[in-house]
């Protein structure tokens, strides 16, 4: 689905593609820094202690989430500057792309990159022979991973919109809400392999974020109804 989003909405406009790739790049850098921290922490600690390792992992995840949000903020700042530049250069004095579109594209960029990193090795292994969950792990590993990745990509998209909107209008609680949601989703994934615990709340959160972002982008229940009934 994320790829479909890409093709239908982003691939037309070259500017959006650039923003997308830049968004992916920012996510990548944040991942890099967070894994650096984790790596240092692991090397500095005792490799035998299981609990400590687990604790460090959790710490790493949380830190990574915070870092991702920080980079989202940095990216927002960069895009603000870029918009001013674009407005100055365009002929009719208004930017060819709005900040909301940028928010959407940035969110998709983040999401795609995170999804790709989460899934792609899995997919590559899935091409090979083998059975899932042969050591007593859940047999639904691939399926749940796929769903989880999808929900994460969508969430990143919505968070992008919400985050940028919050920054635009200086509503700090929106930004805080995004961060808390991200932390929650990551935290929920700790419940794996108890899939009920992680997937369902994630989807609920995603639906909430979707509705919120939709409303923020100027949609309403009326628009939705008209769209669904294919009215013009």
């Amino acid at each position: 689905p994320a790829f479909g989003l890409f093709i239908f909405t982003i691939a037309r406009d070259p500017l959006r593609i650039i923003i997308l790739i830049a968004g992916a790049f920012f996510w990548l850098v944040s991942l890099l820094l967070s894994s650096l921290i984790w790596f240092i922490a692991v090397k500095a600690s005792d490799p035998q202690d299981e609990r400590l390792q687990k604790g460090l992992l959790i710490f790493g995840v949380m830190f990574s989430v915070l870092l991702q949000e920080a980079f989202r903020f940095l990216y927002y700042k960069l895009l603000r500057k870029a918009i001013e530049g674009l407005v100055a250069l365009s002929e009719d004095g208004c930017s060819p792309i709005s900040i909301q579109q940028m928010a959407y594209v940035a969110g998709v960029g983040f999401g795609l990159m995170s999804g790709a990193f989460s899934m792609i090795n899995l997919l590559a292994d899935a091409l090979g022979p083998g059975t899932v969950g042969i050591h007593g792990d859940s047999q639904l590993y691939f399926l749940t991973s796929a769903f989880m990745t999808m929900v994460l990509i969508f969430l990143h998209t919505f968070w992008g919109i919400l985050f940028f909107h919050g920054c635009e209008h200086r509503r700090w609680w929106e930004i805080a809400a995004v961060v808390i949601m991200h932390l929650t989703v990551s935290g929920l994934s700790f419940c794996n392999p108890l899939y009920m615990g992680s997937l369902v709340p994630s989807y609920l959160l995603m639906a909430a974020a979707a509705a919120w972002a939709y409303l923020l982008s100027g949609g309403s229940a009326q628009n939705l109804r008209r769209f669904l009934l294919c009215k013009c």
Partner: protein
Amino acid sequence: MMAFMNNSDSEEEPCNERTSLMSAESPPVPSYQDGLPASEAGQAQAHRKRRAGSSRGPTTNIAGGETSGSGVAVRESILENEEEELTLKYGAKHVIMLFVPVTLCMIVVVATIKSVRFYTEKNGQLIYTPFSEDTPSVGQRLLNSVLNTIVMISVIIVMTVFLVLLYKYRCYKFIHGWLILSSLMLLFLFTYIYLGEVLKTYNVAMDYPTLFIVIWNFGAVGMICIHWKGPLQLQQAYLIMISALMALVFIKYLPEWSAWVILGAISIYDLMAVLCPKGPLRMLVETAQERNEPIFPALIYSSAMMWTVGMAKPDTAARGASQQTWDAAEDGRKQLRSPSHAESQMSETTSPVPTRPVTSLEELEEEERGVKLGLGDFIFYSVLVGKAAATASGDWNTTLACFVAILIGLCLTLLLLAVFKKALPALPISTTFGLIFYFSTDNLVRPFMDTLASHQLYI
């Protein structure tokens, strides 16, 4: 690197014009252990990258009746502002026009590396990297790779200087012959090897006559497209293919550590060769600009084309279309060219019949600004990503990270191009990003992601 293949046993043709400037390296030399003949022509020539060295050309409304030299000067002063706006406005489009071929080339290389095992087996080394890396100690290995790099870079420098000298002294026939031989070799020999390996991997049987016909057609059309004229997309496709083939050859025959050190050294060399006043590539570009000559074909990838439809004189039309990729600068500097300027340059300098380009300019039907990227850039980008795909244990994550890094580097370079408006090296920024991301992703991110994935945690 530009290398001229002057003697048949020359080993490499390092193509000069690395990234924006240089063309690819010459083909591997007789160190193939499988007994391939040294192919001279193929490599170096084909990979010259050149960037249109010409200054920004006027826009479409200025076409008509201007000779290239004076026209440029006049138009430039008038259109400075307009051009700037247009440039930046078209900026995003151009970036995408370059993203697509670079992405395609990388995809081809990565797909081949992942599926065909031939390119990851070590079957010997190029003669340009004489020191082996199979040494027991780390220090020795490092030393050997540094020595390899020095040898390679010096070969490249020698070839580049040689090319510049030839160009300065107007030995055009020689250069053309060199290029033609080079691309001939690439198109036929390497394609044959590639096809053979792919067929072997997928266990498809093919008889020799069919193979012969296929390769002959492919090669002949390729030669025509690249050196003479042909539909733009076909030409672009061919340039991408030969870049990918060249990159595959490099990936196979360069030992690991040497490859990384070479990538780093080449971007530094590119930077210096383009920007230093005495750099060979810069001299090449300037000479070409002074003479208002197009750059040799088959060394630059051009993203747009001037259509000279309905020309009054058929021969100028033919020439114009075929030479649209000939940019003034041989070195692959990136520059945005205005089509009319290029057209006037081309028809002026390359048409044997000295017809004035006036009529042709007036009859230009379509103009598109294009950005030109040297083929060497393509090759080294693909080498980086291909090496990442071949040797990284984190597989796809590392490859993806390098891919994004290179694209971002390309973006930044194009941005700088729009700001500085002169030929720029395209290698340094992208290669630096790519290298940083490769090493950090491989060593830092991979264990993190693996642990996360094993616990099925999501960040």
